[in-house]
């Protein structure tokens, strides 16, 4: 078992818990940016930040860079996220950020979501979409 997988087995929120929390706080909840010891991080990942479990996502104890693309998907399920953020109107179906017109479901999560710092969604390069719950 590689270090990341080993770490995951004792560390992560289960996918069920993730979906439950999404339902509880609304599909678009992004979580506050909070200050933990030595680092800012999203509140929904508090357990990892508080316990210094960088390895959960980064694969190493002392990360020097971003996690591999796809690291988020070890816990989060793309299909569930796509379903949760599907616009109601048929004409808007390709404006689902998680399965969008330009790139389908293949944009790496970190292009729109910042774990340790706020980040504007990729689409704001060109569009005036209002993702009011997204922390920039």
């Amino acid at each position, binding site marked *: 078992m590689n270090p990341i997988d080993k770490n995951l087995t004792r560390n992560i929120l289960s996918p069920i818990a993730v979906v439950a929390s999404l339902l509880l706080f609304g599909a678009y909840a992004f979580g506050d940016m909070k200050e933990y010891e030595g680092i800012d991080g999203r509140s929904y990942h508090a357990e990892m930040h508080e316990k210094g479990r960088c390895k959960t996502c980064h694969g190493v104890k002392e990360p*020097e860079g971003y996690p591999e693309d796809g690291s988020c998907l070890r816990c989060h399920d793309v299909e569930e996220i796509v379903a949760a953020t599907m616009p109601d109107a048929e004409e808007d179906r390709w404006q689902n950020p998680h399965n969008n017109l330009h790139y389908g479901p293949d944009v790496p999560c970190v292009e729109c979501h910042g774990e340790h710092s706020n980040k504007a969604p990729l689409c704001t390069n060109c*569009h005036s979409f209002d993702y009011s719950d997204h922390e920039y």
Partner: protein
Amino acid sequence: MTRKQHDRDRRRFVKGAAAAGIAGLAGPRLIGAARASDTEWHESYDLVIIGSGFAGLAAGIEARRKGIERVAIFEKMPYFGGNSAINGGLFAAPGTPLQAKENVDDSVERMVADQVRSGRGVAYEGLLRHIASNAADALTMCEDAGAEFHPYLQQLGGHSVPRTYQTTVNCGAGITQPLYRKCQELGVLTRNRCRFEKFIQDDTGRVVGVTLATRYYYDRDVSEGETINVKAERGVLVATGGFSQNIALRSAQDPTLTTEVTSTNAPGATGEAMLEMFRLGAVPVHLAYIQSGPWASPDEGGFGYVSNYSIYNFPHSVAINRATGRRFMNEIADRKTRADAELANRDEQGKPLPPVLITSYSEAIKHPSAKKVLKYGVGWKFEDLASLAKEFGIPLEPLKEQIDEYNGYVRGGEDKQFGKSMELAKGKLIEAPFTVVRLWPKVHYCQGGVEINVKAEVIDSSSGLAIPGLYAAGEVTGGVHGVSRLGSCSIPECLVMGITAARTVAGGAA
């Protein structure tokens, strides 16, 4: 200090390392081609394609179909499709099924003639003819891969007949997504976050591979993975697009294109692979011919929604100078003519006064972009001319007169002001309610690049012969369109030249 050491030394996750400061820390890149004899190879393929836009994807598909075994596409950005994935999805071709259906009399020669006119005498006719001759086949490749097009043609500025298809999603992604999936289906390796660094040549000067920085994050300009040498047994195809987003480079070519002029392009369009081809000896062609899109809006970023809205509506709309209330251009002249005319719209202090495009709501709403434009607040609906004039500070009486005058041209079939073709305006009077967008050009397309021949081989500046092992296709090449490219002529160019490059490699040339 090498880039990698530099990256290692950084403390990226230390609190307070602001993202904005990080780009400034990036170290200098090693430049110049390396020699194969000193190279340790990490990976090997038959055909290595740099860039995943129309040209790269079409080349990947055609290469596999022609029996090239190991084909890899490397993309600098985190996602695939390049600038093609955010373009307008407009595709010109002569002799298509829709032209047959709509009884449009068109030919390869007619399309070439339109392009040569817009190219102002310096376009490469041979390449244009090759592209126009194969455009309908490229369209078929897209449809076979699953691309869907509106069931009608459009007539874009500078085209003498309707010959332009458009994807149903009104975007180039309606082509790149199906082609990308087709590539995967055919076993083409596609890898993102791989930044091209330099070419590797053997002792005879043949291009035999490339050096790539992996796990590249363009927004921080940092590579967090290994730098690898990738062998290309049969060729390297550069399909990296233009350099509209490289402000230093574009303003060196055209000093008017400073940071104040925005661009429709994806942020990856910075031209470094083109520059490396020049270092190998490729011929620089037409670099100063950088086109601005006259259909763009100052009210949104990039290509946005307004661009396609305007392109669709220009034939049956009036573009109005807000100071005078009068038209100031043929709304379907070629791009350069219109962009220059728009840029002349200034207030008394000489500041930009973006003109407005006025369209009958009943016509505008026929294209799906109108709904988006209104919904996202980058265009507006007005019940009458008075409220429209008031909103934009346009003198009402001259505006009324202008619209009456123009409606006379619609009825008479002749534009006595600017000689606009009224073919597509037939029966479409400008009437209330109206929709309005503001116009201001954005840097859109680099006509310049490396010189190629009709086999997509890159020409060496000292020998005049093809550089062995090196191919280029799409916007990274120069000369094809001359001074100003006609709208919807990039997609056929990219696809046809990507296909051509694959066929040349498969044929064992160079």
